[in-house]
């Protein structure tokens, strides 16, 4: 049962990550791959606040979300002011640079990782409670993003993605819209990081590297970019896939790259054969 609950905790976390990433890349059309580093900022902030200052879980998780949002502004503002494509380059540098800091400073535990994070919830139903919290957060985030994109601000976001110049001509501050989208998406990723930290009680820098970007990207692309339901389907499909191939009984050292190969092949196939993903957006992404 604990195993199923662990899968459900992960499902909730990845729902938040993929949906918030879809807001950035699918609805906003902003090319950034640094999403896992905001997830990391949230996780490390929450973990460190709990370890060093004994901050309770909820304020620690919220602080992680806020710090992730602030960090995204610091990353995106200089890049977006110059030109959209530079955001991608800046995001790669930001992700790798911050990971290197995490790996090399002592207070984050360095390469060995951060351990001894307090459990926040104890008792026999700990895993089930975490699963409920994580899935609830996931559903809330999906609904929040659906609400945002269906409202007036959502119309502006998609208009910016479809024709930025036209939106500029209408007098809209495109830079501000982009920074806000990134901050909201990254802040939500930070919240997911906080949940992860308190559930697993251990963080390692390798969990937040560029390969993690590929996993989240896979969920969004396969599910369908620019749709509320797409990332949900992508998340469950990609979390289910590793379970489906466990019958092969491959050793862990082989299993991890094998999963990666499957994910990447799926993305490439979808990009070349069905770029709109399983759930097609109203305006197809070609």
């Amino acid at each position: 049962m604990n195993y199923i609950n662990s899968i459900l905790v992960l499902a909730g976390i990845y729902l938040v990550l993929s949906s918030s990433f879809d807001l950035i890349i699918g609805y906003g059309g902003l090319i950034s791959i640094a999403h896992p580093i905001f997830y990391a900022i949230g996780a490390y902030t929450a973990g460190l606040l709990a370890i060093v200052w004994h901050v309770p879980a909820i304020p620690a998780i919220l602080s992680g979300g806020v710090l992730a949002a602030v960090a995204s502004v610091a990353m995106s503002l200089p890049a977006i002011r110059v030109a959209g494509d530079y955001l991608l380059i800046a995001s790669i540098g930001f992700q790798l640079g911050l990971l290197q800091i995490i790996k090399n400073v002592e207070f984050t535990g360095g390469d060995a990782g951060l351990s001894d994070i307090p459990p926040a919830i104890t008792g026999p139903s700990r895993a089930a409670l975490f699963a409920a919290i994580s899935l609830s957060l996931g559903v809330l985030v999906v609904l929040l993003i659906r609400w945002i994109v269906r409202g007036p601000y959502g119309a502006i976001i998609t208009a910016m993605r479809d024709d930025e110049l036209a939106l500029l001509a209408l007098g809209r501050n495109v830079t501000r819209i982009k920074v806000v989208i990134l901050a909201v998406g990254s802040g939500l990723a930070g919240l997911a990081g906080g949940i992860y930290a308190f559930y697993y009680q251990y963080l390692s820098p390798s969990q937040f590297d560029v390969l993690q970007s590929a996993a989240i990207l896979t969920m969004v692309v396969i599910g369908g970019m620019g749709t509320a339901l797409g990332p949900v389907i992508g998340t469950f499909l990609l979390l289910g896939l590793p379970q489906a191939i466990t019958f092969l009984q491959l050793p862990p050292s082989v299993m991890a790259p094998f999963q990666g190969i499957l994910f990447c092949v799926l993305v490439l196939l979808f990009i070349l054969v069905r770029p709109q993903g399983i759930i097609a957006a109203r305006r197809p992404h070609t």
Partner: protein
Amino acid sequence: MMLPILAQIFWTGFANAAYYVLFTIAFALIVKVVQLWNFAQAGMMGIAFYTMYTVINFLEWPTWAAFLIGVAVTAAAGLLVEFYGLRTLRRRRSSNLMFFIFTLIFSELIAYVLMFLFGTEPVTLFPSILSPVRIIHGIAVTDWDLTAIAVTSVSLIALWLFLQFHREGQFLLAVADNGRLAELYGISAQRAYLVAFAIAAVFSCEGMYLFGTRAAVLPTTPNDLMLFAVIGTLLGGMGRLFAAAAAAVVLALVQSYSVLVIASKWQGLVLYGFLFVVIVLFPRGFRLPGFRARRAIPSPTPVQAKV
């Protein structure tokens, strides 16, 4: 007392710049001709290294054969990316986002395949990376340094001659300047893209050979190396190949000298700091005051080619 140390750091940094220059040229050439941020280059670099590694260590063939096979396999991978991937996306008039995802995921796929086949232990091309050393005016100069500088210099000269005097090279420049106009004159842009990928494969393979005989490589190492090429391309100014190469040398020297002021474990961070400075202060590349290009080359927006 300090001067010999500074000179030694300069020399070592200059020699190490050799492979960075080769990676940067490969990246910048695709940006210039295909007008694409080719993140698939990391995958091509991984293929180049592990092909040579397999031929040298498992087949025990000579180095020259390993290099030629490495170039052939890398070029084939590049042509596959262009032919079956990018051409499909171009035909479909896909957004920049799709090109970016395709090239990035291709590199990730190659990294996973290499992990699957070779594991995650760092490896070098040869069992030893030591190179004979001679002391010249108090500076330690290795055979590797001289080989690296010679290979890079000859490659750069060959590329310049190819672009200036060979018909295919001139076609590359024409397509880079204006693909649509070049097509009107009967130049095939698709062929130019394939030639650009083939040249990038040669430079990637040379770079990985030099790097793999100097340091250990993991399946994910090419991703870090490619970032250097991206910064060099940005700093040199998109469309300016040899300025990008010069930028790569400067970056390598800055990184080398940084050991004087910061611990070596933070050297990589200097690079990322540079990235932000370049994006904010020199988004169109760094130009020396009063410097004018002999021929005006438009700076292409690094997106997919529209031809």
